[in-house]
């Protein structure tokens, strides 16, 4: 244990000493400055460690002057204070190191004194146990901050400093008045003493007013919504390094005192106060940042919002009516939030310091050329937005689940704000990663340290909370994540990465084989593993052009899918769901033109995930089992999250570009398996939640409509798509719509159809996307009209695609038909007439794009630029072959797939009799009809061969003609381009259905985005920049606080 007074006294004396030393030697002043900071860091760290390890059991009470607390001033250092002290000095050290590397502003000695005293003030605020002493330290912090904010001596920084100074003076006046009135009312200045006395008080309105004067001052310092114009200006105008320390350390100290004073003064309306101001600040600021173009101010809004969330949590933490366990969790959440935000935001501001420009546009493509910068930036952004496994994620989770159900609206508010946060942060991320930017200054040591601390913190948090939050922390999965990290960090060569990933996956299959039981979990687990292995195998040939982080992210996706499939609790599912979403976001973002798509993907998947989280929060228990739920809200919230991943209309608009622009190597996984995990989740919701509510049938009917309309509209959009991958994307989404329809039917036959189609869709769409990857690799474009005639160059791929398309279109002998047959049988059995009609129509429309794929890619005229295209490389061809064989085999023997599905369904109560039995001559028989797959296969293939032989024997001498030799209007054309009819094949049909393909949904979403942005833009004008106005806001809000929150008897 280090006596905290030593930290303060030595720092103070050193500040004076530096004042002398700088007169003589700048170098020694600098050295001394760092020695002091290191001393502080070590001392505070020792205290914190003492508390952590249990060596210090009771709070440290330092009597200054030797007088017992109420008489003399004392320092009070408990666990929280020790942690905060350590945080403050860590951040200060990082900031100081950064500043020293960049160059301390002249005169250096003075600047160092200011810097030292800023951290000293923050530490004093944290440690002190006396209200007036608190005021003194607040002033020390503030004046040091004024000086440092102005340190850049530019017009902007001076303006910011002046505003800060004016509002800060008003705030400290309030605090001083509050303290003096407190003294007058209680006869003491000591915090603990006052707290003791307050307990014996009749809490009169006047006493509430006194507390409120104090809190009004604190709330100004805490940058709550209407009175934080100054703070935003400081974030925008000041030197980023100073801001990093201010937001990372000083403001956090103010926050700690806010909580402590809230506890000591026992203000009756504290909860309402923090709820309104914290919640309001959080939500409003997240939206105000929506369209901010100045990076620093954007980060400022974000800081303010995070602080609002902290204030909100403080209200819950101090609410005595809450059970102590949930208050304990909220305390943990607060610790994590503070930790997370301090390091992440400081690191971001230190990064900002490396970039000249303030405008976001100036950040264009910065991440591309600066890998280390990218790493730090991503880490920080991910931490702040609460992406797993960073601490912010766990904090959010802890907080939300600790909030009691009667404040569910607060959870809604938090999640809404979180979505807004993701919108603007990832817009920033998008701009920063789009295109080729310039190299930046390399002053990255401090932010790097901060991000490493964040990552460590995330890992620690995960291992800590997994236990009592019921989150699976399967050591194996961690091993996989570590290997992924190792692959990332050491950046092995691509073939090695590929091999390592495959080996790892193989080992995973071996280890998880026992888990692949005949139940829903095992079913999807098998799909993930085997499907993932095939698709991973096919990535080899093109791996040269992939980013280093491709395989690690790929592995993380697969293993988070494993985590999802193995989940037995909803919370566990959610954690891995988020992990999957974000690692796949990284993968999508690797596409050259995918930045915008990845952004939209991030927004939608996180909004979906948060909706799911809200649903999970409302569930009475977390285990995935039958749950007695009433009302339609919970299932809707839950399933929305899954529907996003399935891209069900109207949540589909992310899908086209995310599928289309993501790396070709990743798209098969995205379509083939990741959308299926949405199916898995939806199946769980149908099974355990929707099945038990009274409005279940209505909800199922609604979802069935959603599914069938998705199928219809996405098919329609696919028809008019000119990009191979985007076409397949729409097709994929539409097919998943059928699966949703099958699930919504909720009869054994319907589920049979859904699960069958799940696997089958993986097979043929996986095949198509893998083939597309190969084709694009060979041809160099995914634009359909530029292809054509490739059948001669890639016969195997053509065959594979042909069979896949036959399967996709549902033409009998192939595997795809069984899904269609099961679905329609189920629908007719269910007697949903209109849905049946739409479903049929949608699958008819699918023929249009099926032909389009085959024609524009493989048939028609071979383009000159593709003359040298070759068959796709071996691993892709191999994957194609495997999937091709699977399609044919399942087509002939659908029981290969249907039997396991029946086993799965037999485990599910109510699905026992799958509604399907087998008869020798008729094949598969339902209550309504029958179909004999084997017969159809034999019949078709047999007749085909028979006809072929007959034809070959009888037909005339066949002469192959040259490419351009077509009977074209009586003359032989010379140019290929004129002959290849590949662009806008369905122009005529488009004219007919123009009203159906009007992009209504995307216009609505875009409208929501634009309007929110405009609204935020208008609302932001509220910060006029005029200091008079800011001061008026302060006075107005203080009046309101004094008027509305002065409760009491």
């Amino acid at each position: 244990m280090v006596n905290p007074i030593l930290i303060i006294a030595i720092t103070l004396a050193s500040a004076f000493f530096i004042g002398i030393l700088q007169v003589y030697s700048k170098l020694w002043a600098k050295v001394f400055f760092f020695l002091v900071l290191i001393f502080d860091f070590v001392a505070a760290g020792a205290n914190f460690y003492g508390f952590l390890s249990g060596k210090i059991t009771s709070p440290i009470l330092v009597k200054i002057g030797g007088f017992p607390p109420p008489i003399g001033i004392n320092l009070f250092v408990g666990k929280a204070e020790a942690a905060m002290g350590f945080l403050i000095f860590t951040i200060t050290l990082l900031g100081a190191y950064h500043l020293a590397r960049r160059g301390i502003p002249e005169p250096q000695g003075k600047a160092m004194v200011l810097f030292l005293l800023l951290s000293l003030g923050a530490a004093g605020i944290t440690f002190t146990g006396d209200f007036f002493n608190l005021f003194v330290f607040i002033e020390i912090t503030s004046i040091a901050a004024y000086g440092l904010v102005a340190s850049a001596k530019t017009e902007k920084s001076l303006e910011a400093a002046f505003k800060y100074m004016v509002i800060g003076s008003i705030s400290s006046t309030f605090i001083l008045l509050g303290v003096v009135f407190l003294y007058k009312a209680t006869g003491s200045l000591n915090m603990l003493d006052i707290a003791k006395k307050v307990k014996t008080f009749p809490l009169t309105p006047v006493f509430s007013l006194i507390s409120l004067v104090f809190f009004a001052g604190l709330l100004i310092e805490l940058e709550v919504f209407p009175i934080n114009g100054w703070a935003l200006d400081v974030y925008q105008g000041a030197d980023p390094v100073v801001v990093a320390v201010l937001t990372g350390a000083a403001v956090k100290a103010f926050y700690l005192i806010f909580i402590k004073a809230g506890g000591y003064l026992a203000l009756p309306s504290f909860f309402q106060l923090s709820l309104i101001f914290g919640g309001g600040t959080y939500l409003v600021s997240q939206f105000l940042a929506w369209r901010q173009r100045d990076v620093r101010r954007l980060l400022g809004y974000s800081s303010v919002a995070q602080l609002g969330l902290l204030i909100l949590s403080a209200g819950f933490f101090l609410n005595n009516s809450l059970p102590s366990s949930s208050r304990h969790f909220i305390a943990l959440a607060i610790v994590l939030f503070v930790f997370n935000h301090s390091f992440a935001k400081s690191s971001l501001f230190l990064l900002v310091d490396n970039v000249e420009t303030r405008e976001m546009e100036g950040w264009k493509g910065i991440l591309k050329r600066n890998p280390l910068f990218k790493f730090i930036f991503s880490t920080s952004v991910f931490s702040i937005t609460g992406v797993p496994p960073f601490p912010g994620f766990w904090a959010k989770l802890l907080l939300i689940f600790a909030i009691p159900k009667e404040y569910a609206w607060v959870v809604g508010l938090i999640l809404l704000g979180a979505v807004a946060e993701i919108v603007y942060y990832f817009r920033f991320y998008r701009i920063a990663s789009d295109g080729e930017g310039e190299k930046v200054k390399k002053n990255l040591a401090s932010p790097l340290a901060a991000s490493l601390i964040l990552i460590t913190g995330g890992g620690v948090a995960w291992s800590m909370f997994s236990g009592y939050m019921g989150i699976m922390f399967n050591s194996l999965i961690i091993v996989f994540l570590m290997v992924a990290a190792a692959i990332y960090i050491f950046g092995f060569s691509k073939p090695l990465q590929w091999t390592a990933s495959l080996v790892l996956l193989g080992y995973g299959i071996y280890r998880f084989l026992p888990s692949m039981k005949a139940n829903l979990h095992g079913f999807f687990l098998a799909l993930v593993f085997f499907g993932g292995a095939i698709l991973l195998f096919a990535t080899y040939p093109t791996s040269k052009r992939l980013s280093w982080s491709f395989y690690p992210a790929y592995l993380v996706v697969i293993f988070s899918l494993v985590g999802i499939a193995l989940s037995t609790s909803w919370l566990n599912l959610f954690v891995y769901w988020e992990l999957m979403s974000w690692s796949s976001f990284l993968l999508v973002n690797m596409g050259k033109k995918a930045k915008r798509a990845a952004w939209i993907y991030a927004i939608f998947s996180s909004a979906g995930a948060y909706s799911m989280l809200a649903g999970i929060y409302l569930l009475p228990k977390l285990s995935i089992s039958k749950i007695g739920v009433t009302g339609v809200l919970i299932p809707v919230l839950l399933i929305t999250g899954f529907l996003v991943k399935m891209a069900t209309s109207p949540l589909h608009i992310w899908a086209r570009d995310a599928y289309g622009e993501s790396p070709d190597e990743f798209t098969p996984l995205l379509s083939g398996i990741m959308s299926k995990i949405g199916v898995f989740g939806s199946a769980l919701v149908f099974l355990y939640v929707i099945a038990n509510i009274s409005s279940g049938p209505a909800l199922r009917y609604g979802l069935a409509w959603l599914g069938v309309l998705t199928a219809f509209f996405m098919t329609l959009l696919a028809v008019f798509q000119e990009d191979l991958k985007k076409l397949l994307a729409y097709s994929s989404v539409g097919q998943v719509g059928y699966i949703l329809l099958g699930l919504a039917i909720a009869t054994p036959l319907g589920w049979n159809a859904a699960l069958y189609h799940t696997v089958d869709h993986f097979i043929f769409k996986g095949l198509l996307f893998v083939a597309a990857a190969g084709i694009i690799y060979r041809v160099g474009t995914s634009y359909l009209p530029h292809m054509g005639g490739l059948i001669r160059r890639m016969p195997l791929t053509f065959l594979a695609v042909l069979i896949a398309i036959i399967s996709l279109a549902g033409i009998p002998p192939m595997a795809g038909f069984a899904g269609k047959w099961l679905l329609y049988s189920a629908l007719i059995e269910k007697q949903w007439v209109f849905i049946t009609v739409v479903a049929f129509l949608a699958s008819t429309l699918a023929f249009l794009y099926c032909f389009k794929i085959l024609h524009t890619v493989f048939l028609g005229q071979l383009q000159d630029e593709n003359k040298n295209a070759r068959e796709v490389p071996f691993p892709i061809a191999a994957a194609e072959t495997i999937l091709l064989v699977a399609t044919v085999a399942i087509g002939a023997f659908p029981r290969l797939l249907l039997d396991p599905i029946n086993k799965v369904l037999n485990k599910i109560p109510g699905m026992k009799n799958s509604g399907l039995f087998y008869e020798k001559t008729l094949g598969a028989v339902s209550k309504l009809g029958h179909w004999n797959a084997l017969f159809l296969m034999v019949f078709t293939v047999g007749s085909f061969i028979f006809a072929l032989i007959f034809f070959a024997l009888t037909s005339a001498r066949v002469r192959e003609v040259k490419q351009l030799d077509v009977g074209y209007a009586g003359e032989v054309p010379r140019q290929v381009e004129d002959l290849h009819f590949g662009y806008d094949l369905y122009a005529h049909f488009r004219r007919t259905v123009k009203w159906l393909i009007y992009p209504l949904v995307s216009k609505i979403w875009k409208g929501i985005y634009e309007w929110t942005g405009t609204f935020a833009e208008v609302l932001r004008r509220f910060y006029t920049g005029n200091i008079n106005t800011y001061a008026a806001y302060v006075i107005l809000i203080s009046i309101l606080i004094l008027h509305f929150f002065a409760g009491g008897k």
Partner: protein
Amino acid sequence: MFFFASSIALILIGLYAVLVKRNIMKMVIGLSIMDTGVNILIISLGFIRGKTAPIINAKDLLVRTSSKVVDPVPQALVLTAIVIGVAVTAAALSIVMLMYSKKKSLEIEEYKELKW
């Protein structure tokens, strides 16, 4: 009561300058006035009618001092508050001087670069 009212009035006058005046120098002066008001308020909160200053330079004061002198704590606090007020004013003035040196203007309208 008069002391309370007048010191609060001083605070309000100071704040009025901050709220209304367009000249940043005047705003700083307003802050200074506000500080003074606060200080007077603190002092008057410690006053007790008919009691003497808490300086014990006569023997008779040594016995049951608490019934003879005014509350010394607000005075001690005010001492600190005054110094802090001076410090803030000094810092404010230096900022104002720099601001003036940059733009040659003290008008608040000139300093609205940071907003929204």
